[in-house]
Structure formats: structure tokens, C-alpha cells
């Protein structure tokens, strides 16, 4: 069991302390978890624009208890967490406690350092996470949002009991994947990190503001939101085989078909199949843009054994064919001219 206590909001300083508590040290801002605790790394970076960012990609063997004391003046902490839980994970903010259960917790949430914060992870948790710290001034300058903003205050006041979760969807995960998989030796590494971090922040706040009038965000039970996170993960686990049917999902997660359809839409904003299809096409587009695969190969990887079906589906999503992706310039010219 690892128990760690910090009283500093800056990730880099805390991570340094954490490393020495584990009997190791940082190399290139990175703590590689010593093997007897598990696998993976934690990285703390300070961005050119003043953000403090922590990237975690860890499979922990040991249980962990992490404390951060309340800090004055307070900072905001925005977390994007994807945690696979074996037994349980507990998050205590101030004196409010939330327990997460297996298999998965996958959400973004905004927090502040106003309260003491404790995270207790039982052994065998896998943590894939991006955490960002900034203060009210930063928020004002970069986001144009006042730290004393009513909405933000109300959001923070909701704290844990009705913790406002923003379940992670394909778009969030895409930014996280690009961020976490970025090569630290890339000359523009910091730009890659900062840009993905900014896109995560932009999306989180623009969605929060859009729904400003509607706090709390969901009219469904928290336990149902958790269930949807699991459904979503199952749905998007593998694009190389066709989408699981709604019936199969409803059987697997023991939830009625109509409830599943309704709640999935409430949490992720579109129907189960539309959601699957949108992510699948995003992925196809990304693969095509690498230039390493033919259209046929990408189609196969996305479970299309017929190219024209794949092309049609792609066109439905983007209004142009996969073959036009490389030649998009000609296409643009035609489109712009025909607008006149």
C-alpha cells in the first residue's frame, strides 16, 4: 500500500516528492513506477502558457492512498480520468465521499483545491488520466471565464454527492490518446501536449456553458451514468468487428433495451449506433490520413468487407469519399467556386 500526502498544488513539486517517497526520482519530468508497485508512468509538465499538467498511464499492483490538503488561495483542478477498477475506488472531497465500483470510471470533472482531497484506489487499478491545474486569473485570461462566475461556483459547490460528471466520449478520448502517446523526443512535443490540453479544456467548458441553465446535468441516477460508461466502453472497444447489437448490450449489462437507448442518448448525446458509427469513421479518417494504408485496408480494419459500403458510409459522415481525402484540394476549389 502506498500512502502519499502533499500540500502543494503544483504537479511537478508533488511528483518529485512522490518519487522520493517511492525510493526513486524523476527523469525528464517523469516518474516511472518501480516494478514492485506496478507498471507505467506519471509525468508532470509545466506548459508555456502557465498550465500545470499531469499525465498518468499506470497499471498499479499496489493499493494507493493519495492525499492533497486544502490550498489557499485555491486553484482549479480539471481531471480527465479513465480508471479500470478491480475492487473499488474512493474519492473524498472535503467531507463528502463518493465510491466508484468496477469495472470502469470514465469522466471529466472540475474540482478546486479549496477542500482536502483524498483518492483511495484498491490494488489492481489501471489509471489513464490527464489532470490540469490553473488559477482564477488564468481562467479569466485564457477562457474569458471569471473564477467567481456563478456557474463555476455552483458547479464546484455541488462537489461530490451530485458530482457533475462529464462522461468521456470518443472526442475527449481522442485528445487524451494523442496527448498520452506523443513522443517526448518530438521537437514540438510541448506544443502537442499544450494543444491537446487546451482542446480538452475548451470542450469541457464549452459544454458546461452550453448547459449552464441545466445543473445538475443529468436527470438520471449516478449509478446509471456509471453503467452507461461501461456500455460505451464495450461499444467502442473494437471497431474491427461489427457493432454489438442493442439486444446484446442490454443482455450483457442487464438493462432493458428502451432504458439503454434512452439513457445512452442522455449521456452521450446521440443514439447507440450513430455514436458507434461516428467514432468508427473518425478512426477510419485518421488511419487514411497517416497515408500508410489503402482504402481497402482501412475498410477491413473497420469491419467493412465491401469497399463501396465503406466509401458510402464515409461519405455520409464527411460529405466526401475516402479517395477524395488526399485530393481534397481539388475538391475545395470546386466547392468554393460553385458557391459563387
Amino acid at each position, binding site marked *: 500500500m502506498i500512502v502519499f500526502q502533499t500540500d502543494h498544488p503544483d504537479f511537478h513539486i508533488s511528483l518529485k516528492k512522490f518519487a522520493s517517497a517511492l525510493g526513486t526520482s524523476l527523469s525528464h519530468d517523469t516518474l516511472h513506477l518501480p516494478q514492485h508497485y506496478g507498471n507505467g508512468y506519471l509525468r508532470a509538465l509545466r506548459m*508555456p*502558457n502557465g498550465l500545470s499538467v499531469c499525465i498518468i498511464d499506470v497499471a498499479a499492483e499496489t493499493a494507493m492512498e493519495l492525499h492533497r490538503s486544502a490550498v489557499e488561495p485555491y486553484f482549479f483542478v480539471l481531471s480527465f480520468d479513465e480508471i479500470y477498477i478491480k475492487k473499488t475506488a474512493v474519492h473524498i472531497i472535503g467531507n463528502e465521499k463518493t465510491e466508484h465500483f468496477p469495472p470502469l470510471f470514465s469522466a471529466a470533472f472540475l474540482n478546486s483545491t479549496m477542500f482536502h482531497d483524498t483518492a483511495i484506489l484498491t490494488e489492481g487499478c489501471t489509471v489513464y488520466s490527464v489532470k490540469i491545474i490553473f488559477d482564477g486569473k488564468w481562467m479569466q*485570461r*485564457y*477562457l*474569458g*471565464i471569471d473564477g467567481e462566475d456563478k456557474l463555476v461556483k455552483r458547479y464546484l459547490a455541488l462537489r461530490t454527492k451530485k458530482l457533475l460528471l462529464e462522461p468521456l466520449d470518443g472526442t475527449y478520448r481522442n485528445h487524451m490518446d494523442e496527448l498520452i502517446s506523443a513522443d517526448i523526443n*518530438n*521537437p*514540438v*512535443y*510541448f*506544443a*502537442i501536449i*499544450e*494543444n491537446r490540453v*487546451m*482542446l480538452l*479544456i*475548451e470542450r469541457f*467548458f*464549452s459544454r458546461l*456553458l452550453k448547459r449552464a441553465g441545466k445543473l445538475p446535468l443529468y436527470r438520471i441516477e449516478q449509478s446509471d451514468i456509471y453503467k452507461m460508461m461501461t456500455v460505451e466502453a464495450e461499444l467502442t472497444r473494437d471497431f474491427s468487428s461489427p457493432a454489438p447489437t442493442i439486444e446484446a448490450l442490454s443482455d450483457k449489462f442487464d438493462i432493458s433495451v428502451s432504458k439503454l437507448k434512452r439513457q445512452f442518448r442522455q449521456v452521450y448525446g446521440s443514439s447507440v449506433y450513430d455514436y458507434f458509427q461516428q467514432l468508427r469513421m473518425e478512426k477510419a479518417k485518421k488511419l487514411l*490520413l497517416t497515408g500508410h494504408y489503402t482504402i481497402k485496408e482501412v475498410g477491413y480494419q473497420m469491419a467493412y468487407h465491401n469497399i463501396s459500403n465503406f466509401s458510402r458510409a464515409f461519405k455520409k459522415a464527411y460529405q466526401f469519399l475516402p479517395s477524395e*481525402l*488526399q485530393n*481534397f*484540394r*481539388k475538391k*475545395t*476549389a470546386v466547392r*468554393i*467556386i460553385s458557391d459563387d
Partner: protein
Amino acid sequence: MFEFKFNIRQLDLALIQLAEELKTTVTDGELIFPGDPATGYIRHFLLPNDLDTIIIDLSLTDGMWINRQKTDLEYYVFICEEIISDHTYAKIDGVKPEPSTGLAANVYLVSFLSDLRQYASAGSTVRGIRVILSPEWLASYLHVSELDEVLQRYLALKSKSVHVREMDYETHRLLEELLRPPVEGPLRNAYLENRIMMILEIFFSWLSQQMSVLSMTVKMTKDDIARIIQVEKALLSDLSRAPSITDLSKLIAVSASKLKKQFRDMYGLPPYEYFQQQRMQKAKEMLMVDQLTVKQVGNSLGYSNLSNFTLAFRKVFNENPGEMKKKSIK
């Protein structure tokens, strides 16, 4: 034909100058064009991370010249635009690439130390962004201390194939997002900044890849590059008389053969041919823009014998200076 020349660093101030010439004003960072020489807008933003930037969306009703004159400031202008035109080109330090027709969708970087002239004919559509970058900004945001050398190398290259990047799909998509009506509200600047930063990231990651490939084929140190840049300046300092290779090699204390090879690696031509091309470009400009006579032009570019001048001109443009001038008058 509308022509606008400026040399101030700040884009907001340049925009005010431009507005004055158009006899209109900039309101909330936006200049709406009055219809002549264009319709559309240029919007200025100072982004939260200090980037000085403009977004351009114009349809030209007249031919337009924009000239950012060289200064001695070490800044860069990053250009990312899609131009649909019968006739358009960007000329850097007098090096004029082949004009393009149809769609020119390009991304490139120009130093303030260079003179940049861009032309687009009437009927063109110009949509894009322009960002001013300082070395300090590049160092802190892109951690480009190593890019220093890369940048120098890049800016020294004037052959179009290496210099200008054809716009890729992602950049095009981001540009489209920038050109949409801005999302009003608190996140507006974050929205713009994030897309501009993504475009910069794509360009600079391409650039560093390109340059590392290039450095494998062209083996030159940072000092070599600086010396060859010095040679190029000396070579063009007086277009009426080309310095000899011996003089040039003395200037930088490098052997004549090494100088010739490295010069060619960087500028794509041997020194004398390069000089000659620049000289004839200048001649053309004097004929067409300044409306000087063939004799005046020949004389001022160091030709005492006009038929030699005509021959040299013909070699570059496949046309006699007199014929070309007649066309311009028409």
C-alpha cells in the same frame, strides 16, 4: 490596381494604416472592405498567449499588391492561405515563383528580414490567417531552441518546393473552422487560439521533419548557412555588377569550390546564374512597374551594350524586354 505597403510589426497597426488608405476605419479589430478593391473582411486578434494574428476573408474586385517591406527586426510572419485566382504569387526578396492559377493553398513562413510582395488579380478569393511570431515566442511555446538552426536553414531556402508547404487536410479543416462566424461568448479567444496553435503545430512538426531529412542530404553547419546567407547578400548588393567568385570566397574565407557547392545547395543555382536571375527580375519590375525605357533599365543594371541586355533578358523570360513592356502598356 490597389497597392499597400507597410513595415510595422504589429498587425493591428498595419490594419489601421490599410483602413486609412481605403478611407474607412477598423471597428473592434475588424476592417470591412468597402467593395473596392475587395469585399469581405480582415479581423485582428491578440490571443491570450500573445499571438498577434489576423483572419482574412476577401473577394477582390481589383488586382491587389500587398508589400511587407523588409525591416531589421528578427520576427517571422506565418502565412496560411487559400487563394483562388487567375493569377497570384508571393515574391520573397525579389525571388518570384511561377504564378499559380486555380487554387493555391499554401502554408509558409517568412522572415521580417525579407521583403514580401504578394499579388492577386481581380476576381480572386483570399482566405487565410497570418500570425506574427517572435524568436522568444517560438522558443517558449514550441521549445524551438534546436529549431533555431532549422529555421535559419528553412528561411534561406528559396526554392518553392521546399519553402512552401501545400496545405494538408487537417490544416484546411482547421482553417475552415477559423473562417466560420466566431462563436461569441467567453470561449471565443480560446477557440481561435486553439485552432491557430494546431495549425502552427502541424507546420512546425512538418518543418522539423523536412529539415532533418534535408540536413542528411545537405551537410551544412549553422555557421556554413550563416556564411552563405552573407554571400547571397553581398552578391545582390549591387545588381549592376556581379562580384567575382574570388571576391566572394575571400569575403567569407571559404574555398571557391566549397562556396559554389554550398550556394547551390541552398539557393538551387550557381552564384552567377542566381545573380543574373535576380537582375532580370529587377529589370522586369523596372520595365513593368516603374515604366522605365529599355535603355534606362539596361543602363541602370550595368549594361552599356543594350543588345547584351536584351539577350540576357531573353534568356530568362523567353521574350525581349521591349515586347514585354508593350504588353504591360496594353
